[in-house]
Structures are given as C-alpha cells and as structure tokens.
C-alpha cells in the first residue's frame, strides 16, 4: 500500500510540475503534451499496479517489472529521437535565418551607399 501511495504521489508531483512550467511559459503547450502523457501513464500504473502484471502476461514476459523498464526505455527513446528531430529542424531554421540576415545586411549597405551617392550628386 505504501509503495502505491508513493508512486501516486510521484506521478501527481510530476503532473503539477509540468503544469507549472507550462503556466510559467517555460515549456510550450505542444512540447509538454508527451511529458504529460508519460506522467499520466505513471499515475495509471501507480493506481492499478495489477495492470503491469496483466500486460506482462499478455506479451509473455515472466518477470513483470522488466516490462516496466522496457516501457520506460521505449518512452525515453521516442522522446530523445523526437528531440533530435526538433534539434535538426531548429538548426536548419537558424541557419536559414542567419543567411537571411546576412543577405539583408548586404542590401542595406548597398542602399546606404546609393543614398550617399545621391546626396553627393544633389550637393554638387
């Protein structure tokens, strides 16, 4: 019973922590969805630990806790992969922005040069 309460408490704290971060704009809603799902799965297993034993039975794993580790690994794997994906996307967009800024800078310098020339011509 104590372990059950402990796990439920951990899950609730996780959920509140994620929620607080969303509230304080430290993580976007979109990014928090997967974490929230993870925390809710922990909560579900905390409330009904029999689920994990039944699930292990279904997939034919003798030692039920190892299924827990497998699930945890898969979840983290998916999450890390998604993070890598997003990192590539961000890198690409960042590169694009830097190049764009450089091109804009060149156009502004050209404009300034032209303006100076025009002013000179006016003065002469």
């Amino acid at each position, binding site marked *: 019973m104590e372990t059950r309460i402990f796990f439920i408490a951990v899950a609730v704290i996780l959920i509140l922590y994620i929620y607080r971060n969303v*509230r304080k704009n430290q993580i976007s809603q*979109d990014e928090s969805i997967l974490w929230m799902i993870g925390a809710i799965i922990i909560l579900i297993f905390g409330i009904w630990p029999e689920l994990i034993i039944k699930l292990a039975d279904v997939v034919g794993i003798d030692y039920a806790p190892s299924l827990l580790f497998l699930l945890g690994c898969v979840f983290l794997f998916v999450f890390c992969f998604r993070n890598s994906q997003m990192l590539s996307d961000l890198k690409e967009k960042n590169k694009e922005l830097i190049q764009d800024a450089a091109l804009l800078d060149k156009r502004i310098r050209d404009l300034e040069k032209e303006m100076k020339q025009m002013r000179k011509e006016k003065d002469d």
Partner: protein
Amino acid sequence: MSVLMIIPAHNEAQNLPIVFDDIRKNFPEADILVVNDCSTDDTIDVIKQHPDVAYLNLPVNLGYSFAIQSGLKYAVQEGYDHLIQFDGDGQHLAAEAKKMYVYAMEKDVDIVIGSRFLETTGYHHSFFRRVGTGLFRKIIKMLTGQTISDPTSGLQVIKRSVFEPLSKIFAYPEFPDANLLIQLIYQGYSIDEIAVKMKNREFGESMHGGIVKPVKYMFKMFYYIIMVYFNNITGKKRRA
C-alpha cells in the same frame, strides 16, 4: 478607422490573384497584408505584381498560426484598429468580411466570427469537420455558457484591444481555434457571430486533410482546452 486584411499564404499562387480582385472590388477600404510563409511556388512573384499589397516574406516556414501571429505584429506596428483574418485559398469572400467589419463597428464587439453553421449555406463539410465542430461547440457551451456555432472558422474580425496582447503571447498555439476563443471569453472579451457564405476551395490542399492529422488536431485541441480551463480555475491570467 483603419482595417487590415491578413492573408497567410503558403503556395497559393493560383488563388491569390482571385482573392486580391475580390477584395479590391468588394472591400476597397481594407489594406491587404500577405504573409508569405516560405512558399515553394511562385507566390512571391504573384504578390510583387500587385504593388498595393503589403507583404511579409518569412525566411523559414512557420506554419499557419505563426504566420497569422506575424500579421498581428505587423498590425500592431502599423497602428491598425481592426484586422480581419482572411484565408488565401479563395474560400472567404470579401463582401462577407465587409459585412462582419460593419457589424463589429456598429455593435462595438471585440471579435466577430464568420460562421458557416448559423444558416445552411451549401458549404461542403468533411465528416471529421462536422463531428469535430459539433463537439467543440458543446465544449465551449459547457465551459463558458456561450454558443459559438463555428469555432474553427478562419474568418474573423478582431479589434486592436484583442490582437495587441495576442501578438505578444509566448508559444501562440499551433491551432488557434476553440482553445483561444475559450481563453478570450474567460478574459472578458465579447465575441459575436454572423452567418457568412464561403466557397469550397478552388486549388490546392486543405491543411486538415487525411485521417492522422484530424485525430492529432482533436487530441491537441483537447489538451489545449484542458490547459486553458485549469489556467482559468487557478485564475491569474484574467483581465480585470
């Protein structure tokens, strides 16, 4: 009194000239801003052929909602009083937008939504759209007590007092539909609807096509709404 039409465009080269003609003919008072969301076709050349159209050229693809938010920032910077969200795919009609704008001015409403569901308009709805819209309508009614018949409508007239804070929010939602409306109602803004006609799109693909995308959309939307609901309960973002 100035009004800006924000048209987010991603690969709409075929539709944009029709849209421009429509606006010039039926709503000439409105200024036009196209947000070119990194189109890969010749959208940008089409826009350049129309010197009276202002445009923002996003160097990377941001997606529909962030393209709209770029437009909001422009409207704030240039000091517009009202803006109209208008789709670049030829679905929306300028005459209807004008009707909504006049209504917003007369009744002094913060947000006017162009609804396809208030009257039968002959607009073709996909199955998911109909089911989803019905569901979100019920959710909005349940959470706020207000009836909004078309929460996914992209045709909206928005007042400066609303779009100025919207242009600044962190992580503008990927899909700004029912969740944003609920949040705005909670914050005390007035929202009204009038019936509009819309055309079925002429060229190109809808952004809510397929089966995976609508499911993802529904799921995210539920999550957003739950978040908005809890934010309201724990009450901090309320407007005085």
